[in-house]
């Protein structure tokens, strides 16, 4: 059996490991246009110069040998022939397959704004983006980040921490991390980021990137009419799935390649996993992308098991889980915080821990008592139990504030 995997990040590596676990004789080839294994979640550390690219490698040095995977990096696949069951590579090579996995990920979404194209404007998705930012940041005075999602906020914080320049973030929503935080914690994060030296501009958006005679960015014009000086712009306004290879072959959904419970696409013997896909999210019961590392690993594993003749399903699957540490505050957001049902009961609990840190817990419960969504601020130790309660539609039970002796909580709202 010949397995071909396109992509060498979370989903691709998990699939390769799963195939090898089940079938010692299978031939497994991994192709990627990337030239190294790197963890996408650490790109902000590379961009700010805090971590070398080499240190973001998330698999051991001998990963390929240990698992018997033929890894070919720097090779781009340009086409798939699903009838002949072969792929065409940029170097002219044609590789046959019995089972194919598309774990091609996603790319930065660059909105159609005047001045977006050209030097000095980066996405933050690949090692080249991060190294490009790192290489240019030294001579920069003003950095503007478009979008206060997780990527934008983590980058801004990393740049400020590395004593770089002035950093501004432009966000349409009234507070940063609008997909992960609700009003209470969102407003607090907005203030905290300001206190850390980040110029956080909310409720506004970018109308144009202005360039000087040399073609480099010099300013960013906002919808409100404000003009911000900028010599480096990072666009962190979301992603689009890399579906181009599959688009001529099979079904494409609204935001990715739709996959079933077994990570199969609409084309026989072609599987997909990771950021390129959309699948049913069990907390919302809706088909959507699941853009987090753990979900990509899980999908990759399920795909790998099924590709090698097993039978595994994506159960309790969700991408609505986020963990981050911003401005020194550990945060975990669970469930559809951006799409709250008005019928859910909201409770906010706060306490100060033994080290004097403010810890906040925001819980949304459904009428039957089951937990629907949670934001944990400060103390995230029990986040896994909350995540489990949400996806399994259980009540918080023994975790309800006050019952767990660790928490001496007071309701504040």
């Amino acid at each position, binding site marked *: 059996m010949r397995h071909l995997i396109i992509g060498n990040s979370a989903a691709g590596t998990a699939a390769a490991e799963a195939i090898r676990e089940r079938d010692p004789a299978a031939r497994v080839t991994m192709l990627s246009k990337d030239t190294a294994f790197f963890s996408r979640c650490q790109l902000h550390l590379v961009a700010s110069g805090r971590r070398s690219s080499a240190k973001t490698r*998330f698999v051991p040095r001998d990963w390929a040998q240990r698992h018997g995977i033929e890894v070919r990096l720097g090779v781009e696949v340009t086409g798939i022939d699903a009838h002949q069951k072969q792929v065409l590579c940029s170097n002219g090579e044609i590789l046959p397959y019995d089972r194919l996995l598309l774990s091609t990920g996603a790319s930065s979404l660059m909105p159609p704004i005047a001045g977006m194209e050209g030097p000095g404007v980066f996405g933050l998705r690949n090692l080249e983006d991060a190294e490009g930012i790192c290489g240019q940041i030294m001579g920069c005075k003003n950095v503007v980040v478009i979008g206060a999602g997780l990527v934008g906020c983590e980058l801004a914080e990393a740049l400020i921490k590395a004593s770089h320049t002035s950093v501004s973030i432009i966000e349409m929503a009234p507070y940063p991390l609008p997909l992960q935080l609700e009003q209470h914690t969102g407003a607090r994060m907005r203030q905290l980021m300001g206190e850390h030296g980040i110029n956080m501009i909310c409720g506004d958006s970018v109308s144009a990137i202005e360039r000087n005679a040399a073609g480099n960015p010099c300013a960013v014009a906002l919808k409100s009419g404000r003009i911000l000086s900028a010599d480096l712009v990072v666009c962190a306004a979301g992603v689009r799935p890399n579906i181009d290879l599959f688009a001529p072959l099979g079904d494409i959904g609204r935001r990715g390649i739709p996959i079933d419970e077994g990570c199969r696409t609409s084309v026989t013997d072609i599987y997909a996993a990771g950021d390129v896909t959309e699948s049913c999210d069990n907390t919302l019961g809706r088909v959507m992308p699941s853009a987090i*590392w753990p979900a990509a690993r899980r999908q990759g594993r399920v795909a790998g098991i099924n590709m090698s003749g097993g039978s595994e399903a994506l159960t309790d699957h969700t991408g609505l*889980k986020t963990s981050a540490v911003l401005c020194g505050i*550990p945060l975990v957001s669970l469930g559809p915080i951006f799409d709250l049902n008005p019928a859910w009961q909201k409770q906010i609990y706060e306490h100060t821990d033994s080290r004097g840190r403010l810890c906040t817990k925001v819980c949304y419960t459904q009428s039957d008592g089951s937990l629907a969504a949670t934001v944990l601020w400060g103390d995230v130790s029990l986040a896994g139990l909350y995540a489990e309660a949400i996806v399994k539609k259980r009540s918080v039970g023994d975790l309800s504030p006050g019952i767990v002796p660790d928490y001496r909580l007071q309701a504040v709202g």
Partner: protein
Amino acid sequence: MRQKIISCDKCTGCKNCELACIVVHSPNEDLKQAYKDGGIAAIRARCKVELTSDGSLFPEHCRHCAEPQCAQACMSGALSKNDAGHVVCDTETCVGCFMCVMSCPHGFARPSTGDQRIMIKCDGCSERVCAACVEACPTGCLTLGEADEQGDGVVYIHPPKAREAC
């Protein structure tokens, strides 16, 4: 693989397991020195005896799951299963993203309380002949044995209703 067998009905809540865990995870296994140096707050027991809402004692230990979700969530490659079957964290590689924390359904991947931003978890005392918690258990609640070759690294006997299931 030797598994930790936990007979929950033998737990008396003496917390010797927690204390032994703190001792072996103190610098040079010297709790007294750690206390003198003021570093005791940074040492966290990796196991815990919980009192559930129905009043029973639940000795909570990392399961060293057959399919560890903490390791699956790890984006730095710090978490992996070692040859002894224990899920361990390489603290040099860990960047403290805490995705493992939100992914462990038992709540046993936790942020370190020390200065370094890393996760901590039970390392199974892989380098010891016998896990410190097992060695210290006076009631026979914690023992080592071979129960199920395919399963998790920890086997529960007569567990009370788990605190997450309600």
